[in-house]
């Protein structure tokens, strides 16, 4: 059983997390998004909205907005970076583990939901999936 700071706090707040948190990429909204979806983490009130524009099956613009902790906001920023330019099908394939790999940190069960909120919002928006990615593992 690993706690939130399984690898220690300094590990959790690695340079790149703080960097994405304090200098988020793709923060903002799109004017007439093709896809827009907002979700919250019921446990803490974190809130993420993802706006996507798709052209020729490719995500040609993506923005996130919302409020939350460094993990949820950095994750959203990283996810935007990762999917921009990808096809929707490629985006759909991004898994829970891929997201955690992007974050590069170990998360306990509660903060895991912060780390996965952006992905969850994307998936719900992009193809109506309303469960936690990999839900039963973190149920």
């Amino acid at each position: 059983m690993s706690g939130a700071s399984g690898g220690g706090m300094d590990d959790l707040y690695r340079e790149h997390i703080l960097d994405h948190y304090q200098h988020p990429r793709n923060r903002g909204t799109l004017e007439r998004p093709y896809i827009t979806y907002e979700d919250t983490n019921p446990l803490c009130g974190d809130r993420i909205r993802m706006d996507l524009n798709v052209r020729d099956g490719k995500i040609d613009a993506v923005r996130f907005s919302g409020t939350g902790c460094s993990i949820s906001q950095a994750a959203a920023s990283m996810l935007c970076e990762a999917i921009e330019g990808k096809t929707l099908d490629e985006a759909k394939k991004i898994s829970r583990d891929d997201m955690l790999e992007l974050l590069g940190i170990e998360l306990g069960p509660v903060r895991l939901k912060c780390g996965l909120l952006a992905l969850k919002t994307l998936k719900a928006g992009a193809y109506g999936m309303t469960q936690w990615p990999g839900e039963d593992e973190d149920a």
Partner: protein
Amino acid sequence: MKASDTATASLDARAVREQFPIFRAERAKPLRYLDSAATSQKPDAVIEAMDRYYGTINANIHRGIYRIAEEATAAYEDARRRLADFIGARSPRELIFTSNSTAAINLVAYAWGRSQLEAGDAIVLTVMEHHANLVPWQILAAERDVELRFIPITGSGELDLAALPTLLADGRVKLVGAVHISNVLGTVNPIAEIARQAHAAGARMLVDASQSVPHCPVDVQALGCDFFAFTGHKMLGPTGIGGLWARRELLEAMPPFMGGGEMIREVKLTGSKWNELPWKFEAGTMPIAEAIGLGAAVDYLRSLGMERVFAHDRELVAYAMERLREVPGLTLLGPSEDKRGGVIAFTLDGIHPHDVATVLDDDGVAVRAGHHCAMPLHEALGVPASARASFHCYSLPEEVDALVAGLHRARKVFAR
């Protein structure tokens, strides 16, 4: 661990018994506990799991970010997973913790029943239901003008399934509810067949599994039911916890039951959005220690093997029936040994079950006397009350011997 579920060697009840502190406690007369259908005893492993939670990781769950809160959350959800697996659920999301079977059935009656049933609908129950699977439906029936119908019992204490097609015939039945193993007669009911007929008639099937989950292998998929209620304290677990399993689609469609923290996703003064399954139905601080204790009980039962637990129950009940037939004036209730679990109720001519129980208590033999929360069944049987002996994995044949000796003594006392 799963392998042992199908092991064939029989249970070493004497060794099992050593793991239950209540049987090691010093007392004037040894305890001969024959009331496991009312509540089971608890092994060290269960008590210790709860003490460990309180003594090392006690914290509220789901919201705490600090270490012990995350450990407590993981332990709680882990217990859910083990329990879901134990009864054959497809996902832990279909398993809602409640405070007991009664609360589980009331959850169905309120959240599903109030949203689905209307005047003119009907519910089919059985005459052998425990009050827990009767009174919630009576309350609903009175409120909504819903009709209750009952599957009768045969002379030998089995469900009279010949009556079922007629009960279902008019297509108004929305729910069929039946006890899996009767807590009085011990009868093991043919749930899969009832569920098949219920579904064919467009009704949902609810199973009161309070007496089966603790004693025999169960599989909600094989039973083919829709709702499945059970209770922790009868399955070697603590008081204060139970469970409701239901098909995911049904749970998704149901409105919540209790309102409060945790079951919501977002609250504004003007209204709220519900949380996901299973938390939509878990309002407020849950019985956390108890869920963890119940998880330990599941591990313990699995280590014994449910096939073996059931075989042990059935051996004892067969032995008890044989020995009880020796007692003059004694009438056994319920079916033959091959059709029942580890429960045996009886009456003794001219001696009220209360008096039977009191005389037995004097020898340290604990049996239950009364209607066992099944008044309509007793009415159908034509007796106001009965005495009941029931077993679990720690029960021994010499406890049956003590019971029989006590009954002979009772007859002497009342023959004065």
